[in-house]
């Protein structure tokens, strides 16, 4: 199978959907003339023109709201945030308008919009540019959230998100854009709400999402050297949430570590742990542990940053603890 970078996969997804449907357009900072801050929209301005590839001023709340308005009357905007750190300025629009208007209007006004861009830490970008924001969006009914970790999922989930009639937040990984992976030729769609086992295993389950899939796989490879068979379940979609897949892996291994890039309190993992204790309590042979970012703003210093981020070693340690090794 052919290989694409994560960046190319996202780009291909958007281009295909823009070719397919004239109501799809891309709006955001630097998406046009600059070819995208992370070059996801390279060549788009030439290909689709300034009406469909729209450079905005640095006004996140404003252009998020303009996109929502356009979606309310039938267009299908893709709003690119240079990073989701900046989307915090647009939270009122996303959470108060995009998430609620369909409901408040008694079902008259669906909002088919995609908000996409990178979340989480890169390298030494310090506190304001290094945070995983999943919780902010998964918390609100009315929003769907996907977190592709591989090029194939990036393409398939983004295409599904663009075709969805609800607001979908697509959380990408800044450090993933250059990652290569196999992506099927032709129409490739990953439906929302379907998790994927990225590595089969039988002793312990590492459940995770987004960029942390790669950390989980590293951890699983290290555990394999100690003859421990770790399963890696990638949720891919946080809302809708593939609860069946979670319960299946719990029933298979009876031991779980949740790995996420965000902070622990009210994090995604907190909800996953709750679901497991509520619906699979009798399957557990050990308490579920979480590996998260240290509960501090991200430091700049390289050594401190490494300490703050979830690492494969911390995941290995957590797996050993739930295995009582």
């Amino acid at each position, binding site marked *: 199978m052919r290989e694409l970078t994560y960046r190319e996969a996202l780009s291909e997804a958007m281009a295909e959907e823009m070719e397919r449907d004239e109501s799809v*357009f891309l709006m955001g900072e630097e998406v046009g003339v600059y070819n995208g801050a992370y070059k996801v929209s390279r060549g788009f301005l030439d290909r689709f023109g300034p*009406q469909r590839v729209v450079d*905005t*001023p640095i*006004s996140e*709340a*404003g*252009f*998020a*709201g*303009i*996109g*929502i*308005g*356009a*979606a*309310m*009357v*039938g*267009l299908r905007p893709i709003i690119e945030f240079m990073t989701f750190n900046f989307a915090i300025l647009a939270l*009122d*629009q996303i959470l*108060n*308008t995009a998430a609620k*208007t*369909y*409901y*408040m*209007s*008694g*079902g*008259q*006004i*669906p909002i*088919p919009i995609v908000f996409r861009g990178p979340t989480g830490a890169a390298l030494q970008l310090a506190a304001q540019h290094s945070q995983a924001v999943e919780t902010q969006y998964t918390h609100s*009914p*009315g929003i*769907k959230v996907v977190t592709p970790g591989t090029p194939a999922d990036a393409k398939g989930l983004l295409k599904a998100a663009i075709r*969805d*009639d*609800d607001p979908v937040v697509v959380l990408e990984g800044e450090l993933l854009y250059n990652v290569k992976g196999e992506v099927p030729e032709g129409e490739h769609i990953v*439906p*929302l*709400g*379907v998790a994927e086992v990225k590595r089969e295993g039988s002793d312990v389950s590492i459940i995770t999402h987004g960029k942390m899939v790669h950390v989980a796989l590293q951890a699983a490879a290290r555990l394999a050297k100690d003859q421990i068979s770790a399963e890696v379940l990638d949720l891919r*979609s946080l*809302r*809708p*949430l*593939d*609860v069946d897949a979670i319960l299946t892996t719990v029933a298979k291994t009876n031991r779980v570590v949740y790995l996420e890039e965000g902070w622990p309190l009210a994090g995604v993992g907190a*909800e996953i742990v709750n*679901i497991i204790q*509520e619906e699979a309590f009798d399957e557990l042979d050990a308490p579920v542990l979480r590996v998260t970012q240290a509960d501090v703003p991200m430091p700049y210093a390289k050594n401190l940053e490494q300490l703050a981020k979830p690492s494969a070693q911390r995941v290995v340690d957590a797996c050993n603890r739930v295995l009582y090794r």
Partner: protein
Amino acid sequence: MAKSRTSLRSGLETADLPRPPKSLGGLSREALLDFLKEMLLSRRFEEAAEEAYAIGKIGGFCHLYIGQEAVGVGAIRAIRPDDYVITAYREHAQAINKGISPRAVMAELFGRSTGCSGGKGGSMHLFDASVNFMGGYAIVGGHVPLAAGFGWAIKYRGEDRVCLCFLGDAAVNQGSFHETLNMAAVWKLPVVYVVENNEYGMGTAYARVSTLPIFERACSYDIPSTAVDGQDVVAVHTAVREYAERARRGEGPSLIEARTYRYKGHSMSDPVHGVYRSKEEVEDRMSHADPIVLLRSRMEAVGLIDQATMDALDNEVRAVVADAVKFADASPVADPSQLYTHVYHSLDVHGRLFLDRMNRSAAKVSEGVGRGVGGGEARGGVGANRKDS
């Protein structure tokens, strides 16, 4: 050159604007009677809402439009039915002005299933997409970019529609207002912003927290703007018509500051006067600047209306309002099954969308519906309930 507080203050008073204008805007007697009747309907509707609130039929926040009727009527009568209107949370009358039946609006205030938002929105979130009334919103300034989004879509599709966006004076100090005006100007979006300056953002006088008159804010974005007497329905109508036509010609956004006055408290739970404005001030405005009295007296002066006609109009709208209250009161409450509908339009076959235990069974039912009809059951929303008048 900075203006002193004193000059700003006086610059904001409606009394400083010429009144009454010499003409009636070249409008026909029929058009003027229609304005008068619509303003009367707006007033009587709000009086009925006030009564219903007092006896507990309406809950939550309830912001009355009494005193500001000329702005809604004058502006909405100046645009076409296919033009969009979007507004904030003091919008009962504007919803009616745009074509939602008083029955559906009152039923919404009562929280009934026959309401224009199916009982899910309430006083602050009235919607009827079929008449292009795109909602009331309750985060100050939050809907200002949505209006530009409608304008964006209009331009994207090459249509000749416009969007009329009402906002309050307090909204002009929100970042969303400034971000949006800038982009609307850059992209020449067909939006007419009508700022209803009733002088107070809740209890804070505009002049206490601002240094420039509202319409001058638009200068920063090279957007044409004007201030009009918002108690003069003809003046509002004339200004909006001119700017709407300009937008339709592709010449971009504009802003009108309509200087008006709210007779009641910010919401029903807020006193009419006392803390932030005096009884004398309120009484003075009510006696000298009532939009209904102003239009009526000007029409009387030129022989366009007599007492009998006025009485007939008033009786007619009172009957409409009484019918709306009766309809709302007799309407069923929302069915419990509606709790989980309209959260999502595409009900995914895979995965769990609702994470609460209470909905565990409801989610399964919803998924079944989604599968059966391709997730499209909600497309018409509550629209089917709305043809009731």
